[in-house]
C-alpha cells in the first residue's frame, strides 16, 4: 500500500471494526424518509441512559428500501446483524437487550453479514456469529441479495460516507495510487476499453473509446464532467452512490482525468438531491485535505481540481450538451451533435462526460483488471447494472445485477413479484426516454441491445413495475406530460410535438379519442423522433409508441368502447 494511504487505512479499519459494540443506522435519504433519524435519536438516548459501551454511527444505504429503517449491530469480532423495520420502541428494546445480556436479540434479526468482500483488494473477510443467531439467514443467502453482484454499490451501506478513512480501509484510492505511479494514460484507457465498460447514464457508449477520442484531440486544456443529474423520475441509483459512497465517484473521476489529460473537472448534481450535494461537498474537501485532489496528487506530479455544480431543476440538463451550456453560465439548452463533447465540449475544449456509476466502476476495473471485469455479465454487455426497483413490486430497493440476467430473475427472484396478489403487467425502464415492456417478454435478457430492440432502453436504471391496476394509456400520458413540461423549447419538433402527443393521449384518457388518433399518434411520434435536436425529443415518443405496440388492446378499449380496462381513466366523464 502507498505510504500516503497507510494512516488513513489504519484509522478506517479502527472505525469500521471497533473493539466495542457498533450500532449503525442506514441514513441515506430513503432511510431518513422512513424515519431513520427518529430511530437514531432513540438509540442515542437509550445508549446514554443504559451507559452502554457502544458506538453509534449513520451510514449510507444497502439498498433494501422495503425494510427501512435498517439498523445493524456488530459485536467485536463478529458479523454484522441486520435488523429491519425499526421503530423507536424497537430501537430502545434492542439497546436494553444488549445492556442486559451482552448478546444480540434474535427477534427481527433479518440477516447476518458473516463475510465482507473488499472488491478492490480482492479479499474476503469472514466473521463468526453468536450461537443464538445460528437460525438467522446469511446476508448472501437472502433472496433479495443472493443473485446481486455489487460492484458500483460495493461500499454502499458498508462505509460511513462522511469518512474518507473507511473508504480507504476498503481499498479506496489504492487504484488511483497504482494508476498514477505505474501506468501511462494510454494504459489506463486500454484497460478501460478491455473491460468493455459502457456508459451507465443510458446511452451505453464505450467508456474507453470516448476517453480515447478526448485524449487524441490535440490541446492543453481538457475537462471531465461527472453527470449526477439523474433526472428520470423513479430512479435513485446515482443519488444512493453519491450519498453512500461519494469517494468512489471522486476516485473514478480523477483516474478519468489522468487518462485524458484533464486538470479540471465538474461534478453536476441535481438540485433535488440536497443530501448528495452535502456529502459530495464534504468528500471533495477531505480528498483535497489528504492530497488526493489538487496539486501533485499522491506525489505523482499530476494536478487536478474537481468542483461541484448544483443544478436547478431542469430535466434537460442531464443531456450532455445541455449540461455543458448550464455549466458555462446560463440556461441549459442543448446543442446539435456533432461535434461531440469529447471533441469540443466545455468552452469548446475536449470534454469527457460520464455518469456517476460509470466513474465509480473505474477504480474496480483498474484494481482488478479489464479482463476481470469483462468476465462479469455477458459478452458485449460486460459488468453490472444498477436498477431502482420500484412501483408495484414486493421488494422495492436498489439492486445491482450482472448484465444478461433475465427480467424474470430480476422481478421474481429479487423483487419477489408484485406482492399484492395482482399480476405484474409491465415494467417501465429508461424513464421518459424509455418504454414499457410487457410481461410476456420477461424472459428476455437485460442487455442494451435487447432492451432497445424491444422498444425500450436500458436507461440509467429506473425500473418501475406496473401491475394490472395500471392503465398503460395513462402511463403514456403521464410521460408525455413530463416531456412536454421539460422540453426546453429550442426546437420546434420537440416543443410542438410533445404537446401534440400529450393532447392526443389526454383526449383518449378522457374518452374523447377516436380510432384515427392511434395512427396520428404514430405519425407524430415518428416525426418528433426524426426532427428533434437532442435526445430528449428524439426519445420522448417512446413511452407512447411502446405502449401502443404492446398494449394496443387497451388503447382500442379507450377509443372504440370508451372504456378503461384498468378503471383508471375518466373515460365516461
Amino acid at each position, binding site marked *: 500500500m502507498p505510504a500516503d494511504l497507510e494512516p488513513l487505512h489504519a484509522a478506517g479499519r479502527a472505525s469500521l471494526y471497533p473493539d466495542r459494540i457498533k450500532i449503525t443506522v442506514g441514513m441515506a435519504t430513503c432511510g431518513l424518509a422512513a424515519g431513520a433519524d427518529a430511530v437514531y435519536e432513540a438509540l442515542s438516548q437509550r445508549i446514554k441512559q443504559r451507559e452502554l459501551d457502544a458506538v453509534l454511527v449513520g451510514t449510507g444505504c444497502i439498498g433494501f428500501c422495503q425494510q427501512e429503517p435498517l439498523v445493524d449491530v456488530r459485536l467485536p469480532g463478529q458479523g454484522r446483524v441486520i435488523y429491519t423495520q425499526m421503530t423507536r420502541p424497537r430501537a430502545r428494546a434492542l439497546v436494553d437487550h444488549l445492556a442486559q445480556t451482552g448478546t444480540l436479540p434474535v427477534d427481527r434479526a433479518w440477516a447476518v453479514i458473516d463475510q465482507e468482500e473488499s472488491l478492490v483488494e480482492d479479499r474476503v473477510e469472514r466473521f463468526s456469529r453468536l450461537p443464538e443467531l445460528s437460525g438467522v439467514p446469511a446476508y448472501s443467502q437472502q433472496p433479495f441479495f443472493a443473485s446481486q453482484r455489487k460492484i458500483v454499490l460495493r461500499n454502499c451501506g458498508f462505509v460511513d460516507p462522511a469518512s474518507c478513512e473507511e473508504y480507504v480501509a476498503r481499498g479506496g484510492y489504492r487504484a488511483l495510487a497504482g494508476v498514477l505511479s505505474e501506468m501511462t494514460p494510454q494504459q489506463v484507457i486500454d484497460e478501460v476499453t478491455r473491460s468493455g465498460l459502457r456508459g451507465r447514464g443510458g446511452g451505453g457508449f464505450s467508456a474507453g473509446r470516448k476517453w480515447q477520442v478526448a485524449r487524441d484531440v490535440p490541446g492543453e486544456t481538457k475537462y471531465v464532467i461527472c453527470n449526477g443529474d439523474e433526472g428520470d423520475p423513479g430512479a435513485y441509483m446515482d443519488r444512493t452512490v453519491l450519498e453512500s459512497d461519494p469517494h468512489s465517484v471522486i476516485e473514478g473521476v480523477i483516474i478519468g482525468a489522468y487518462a485524458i489529460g484533464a486538470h479540471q473537472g465538474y461534478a453536476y448534481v441535481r438540485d433535488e438531491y440536497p443530501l448528495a450535494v452535502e456529502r459530495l461537498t464534504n468528500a471533495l474537501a477531505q480528498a483535497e485535505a489528504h492530497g488526493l485532489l*489538487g496539486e501533485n496528487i499522491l506525489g505523482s506530479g499530476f494536478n487536478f481540481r474537481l468542483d461541484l455544480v*448544483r443544478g436547478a431543476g431542469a430535466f434537460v440538463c442531464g443531456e450532455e450538451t445541455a449540461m455543458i451550456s448550464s455549466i458555462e453560465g446560463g440556461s441549459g439548452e442543448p446543442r446539435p451533435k456533432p461535434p461531440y463533447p469529447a471533441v469540443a465540449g466545455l*468552452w469548446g475544449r475536449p470534454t469527457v462526460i460520464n455518469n456517476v456509476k460509470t466513474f465509480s466502476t473505474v477504480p474496480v476495473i483498474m484494481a482488478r483488471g479489464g479482463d476481470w471485469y469483462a468476465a462479469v455479465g455477458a459478452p458485449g454487455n460486460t459488468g453490472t447494472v444498477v436498477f*431502482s426497483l*420500484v412501483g408495484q413490486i414486493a421488494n422495492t430497493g436498489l439492486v445491482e445485477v450482472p448484465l444478461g440476467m433475465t427480467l424474470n430473475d430480476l422481478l421474481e427472484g429479487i423483487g419477489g413479484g408484485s406482492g399484492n396478489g395482482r399480476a405484474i403487467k409491465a415494467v417501465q425502464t429508461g424513464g421518459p426516454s424509455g418504454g414499457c415492456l410487457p410481461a410476456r417478454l420477461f424472459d428476455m435478457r437485460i442487455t442494451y441491445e435487447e432492451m432497445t430492440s424491444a422498444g425500450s432502453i436500458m436507461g440509467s436504471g429506473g425500473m418501475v413495475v406496473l401491475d394490472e391496476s395500471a392503465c398503460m394509456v395513462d402511463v403514456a400520458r403521464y410521460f408525455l406530460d413530463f416531456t412536454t413540461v421539460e422540453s426546453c423549447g429550442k426546437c420546434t419538433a420537440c416543443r410542438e410535438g410533445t404537446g401534440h402527443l400529450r393532447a392526443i393521449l389526454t383526449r383518449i384518457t378522457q374518452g374523447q379519442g377516436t380510432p384515427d388518433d392511434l395512427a396520428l399518434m404514430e405519425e407524430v411520434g415518428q416525426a418528433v423522433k426524426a426532427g428533434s435536436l437532442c435526445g430528449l425529443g428524439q426519445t420522448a415518443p417512446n413511452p407512447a409508441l411502446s405502449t401502443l405496440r404492446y398494449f394496443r388492446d387497451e388503447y382500442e378499449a379507450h377509443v372504440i368502447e370508451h372504456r378503461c380496462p384498468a378503471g383508471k381513466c375518466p373515460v365516461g366523464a
Partner: protein
Amino acid sequence: MLPSQQYRQPDAGGVLAALHQVNMRYGYLPQDEVRQVAIELGVPLSQVFSAATFYASFSFTPVGRHKLQVCEGTACYVKGAPALMGHLQAELGVAPDQTTEDMTFTLKRVRCVGSCGLAPVVRVDNETFGRLTHSDLGIILDKYR
C-alpha cells in the same frame, strides 16, 4: 497561481451558484438581486434573467416559509401521488405553485426526489417523508404550522 488552477474558468457554474445563493437567502429571486448578480459577475443581464427563468428551482415571486413538495415521479404516481396532491390542495386551499394566504406553505409538484422505494413521498424543505397515507399528511402539516 497554483498549477491546478490554471485551467479553471472562474465563471464556471457561476451564474447558477449565484442564483442559488440569492434563492437561499430570500426563498425566491428579487429582481434587484438578480441585477446585482449580473453586475458582480460581469455577465449580461439578459443571460442571467434567461437562466433564472429557465430553471424550475427559481421563482420571481415570494414564497411561503415552507416549501411543500409533492412527488409526482413515476413511482409515486403509480402509488397514489395524485390523490395525495388532491388532498393537500383541498386542505390548504391552493393549487401547485401557489402559496397559502398565511404564507406558511408554498405547494410544489416535483418529479422525483429519489426516494422512490418509499413512494408516495412528500418533502417539506429538506425533510422527506415516505410511505404516506392521507392521515399522515395532517400530522406533517401540523409539524410546520
